[in-house]
């Protein structure tokens, strides 16, 4: 019986998109979606020991999917157009990224980490500035590359054209290096696109916001500057917090005040 999760992400024969086409989506949900896609693809026999997986995009979802797949004995290739993984977070010093931001008042909210119970996800994540998280994830991805020889990572590489279904039931894909290396055309069991939401920049009419994953543009405000913050999402709330307090997160403020998380929890309950 066909798997409804996989069918809902099918975009081409044996190609699945779990990325930004379905945005907005939290990083944590990207990870869950990636792991689920890999597990279901194995259960359905779309990938396995003789059916490799091609993952596009070395962000949180792509790295999760690739490590998960390789850990299950599937030959896995992870391609990324940039020269390294976690592009958005790696260059961002000012965004505080918390895996359980929206989970209050569930107990694990106070622990600010993910996953909060076994089984382990490939990229362990504790709340913090985006660039620190990117470093921890990049180290974890490299560890996985050493641990699983079947995990191959190709940076500066893109998928060219639509994959073609071969009579063998495998997909012929074409990969091109942006450094003009010879075209690589492996046969794979499935393709998983994990390309995300880009810089997450909002535009409303004449108003254009700043990229979410960029340096804080409000660090150098003068006393006479005015800022319009539109929206009530996490980006807008973080901007508001930083403009008003100069701190990156509520957690930083609590830490500066020496306030235990339990008190923070009580405040939230109130």
């Amino acid at each position, binding site marked *: 019986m066909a798997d409804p999760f996989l069918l809902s992400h099918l975009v081409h024969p044996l190609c699945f998109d779990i990325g930004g086409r379905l945005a907005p989506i939290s990083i944590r949900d990207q990870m869950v979606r990636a792991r689920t896609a890999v597990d279901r693809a194995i259960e359905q026999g779309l990938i396995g020991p003789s059916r490799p997986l091609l993952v596009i995009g070395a962000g949180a979802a792509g790295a999760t999917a690739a490590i998960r797949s390789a850990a299950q004995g599937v030959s896995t290739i992870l391609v990324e157009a940039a020269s390294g993984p976690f592009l958005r977070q790696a260059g961002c010093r000012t965004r505080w990224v918390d895996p359980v931001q929206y989970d209050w008042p569930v107990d694990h909210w106070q622990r600010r980490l993910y996953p909060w119970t076994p089984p382990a996800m490939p990229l362990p994540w504790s709340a913090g500035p985006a660039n620190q998280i990117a470093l921890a994830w990049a180290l974890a991805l490299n560890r996985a590359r050493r641990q699983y020889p079947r995990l191959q990572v190709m940076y500066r590489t893109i998928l060219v054209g639509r994959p073609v279904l071969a009579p063998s039931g495998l997909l012929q894909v074409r990969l091109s290096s942006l*450094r003009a290396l010879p075209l690589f055309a492996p046969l794979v069991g499935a393709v998983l696109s994990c390309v995300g939401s880009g810089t997450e920049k909002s535009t409303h009419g004449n108003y254009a916001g700043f990229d979410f994953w960029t340096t804080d543009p409000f660090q150098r405000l003068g006393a006479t500057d005015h800022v319009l913050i539109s929206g009530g999402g996490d980006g807008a709330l973080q901007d508001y917090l930083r403009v008003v307090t100069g701190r990156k997160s509520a957690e930083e403020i609590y830490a500066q005040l020496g306030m235990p998380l339990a008190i923070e929890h009580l405040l939230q309950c109130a």
Partner: protein
Amino acid sequence: MQLAQALEVAIEMVPREAGPEQVLAGLAAQSSKAQHLDAIVLDADERGLENAVEWVRTFHGEYLRRQAVAAAEAWENAFRPRPSQEPPSPPVPPVLIVLASPDRLNQGLGDVEARLAGGGAVVYEKPSDPGWLANIADRLHEELTETYARFWAAEQRTGEWQEPEAVHGPEGQPDLAPYIAPLYQLSDEDFEALLERGRGADPLATGE
């Protein structure tokens, strides 16, 4: 990976005058002795931001070129439906951390960071304390430890961190029919848009 292993991180500072090729040669020598570095740290203030961007671009460009040549056979083999043998593991590049003082970084409103990240580096603010640089590996290790502190506590509390459980495929040949049917597939136009997004890591950000 056990989380305890995440805290065993080998980090070194890039020597002040060292160029990318020199560092790559050192890494190759280490790799031949089955040693590896997890991360290297480049001080952008020493070189200037533009030079640091160029350093990162050259480092990863040259590394990827060498890796592509060296690993071509491994890639081909890994993607045969039935690999002839367990493919050799190509060397893994260390994570490149670029340190720069906040004053310099803040001048470009994220432009430099985007170019450095697009070039494959993780950008860090350089603390004002000069003692920080002298013990860079220890300090970053401390920071990683702090980042993982809650995790670490949770792991010790539960004492049951597990390796990934095995997922099993079907017996016999898979039924591919539902996954090659045209019902759910994107139009040519939408699929092109999808491909375009996959190319959208902005090569311009790395100046190529």
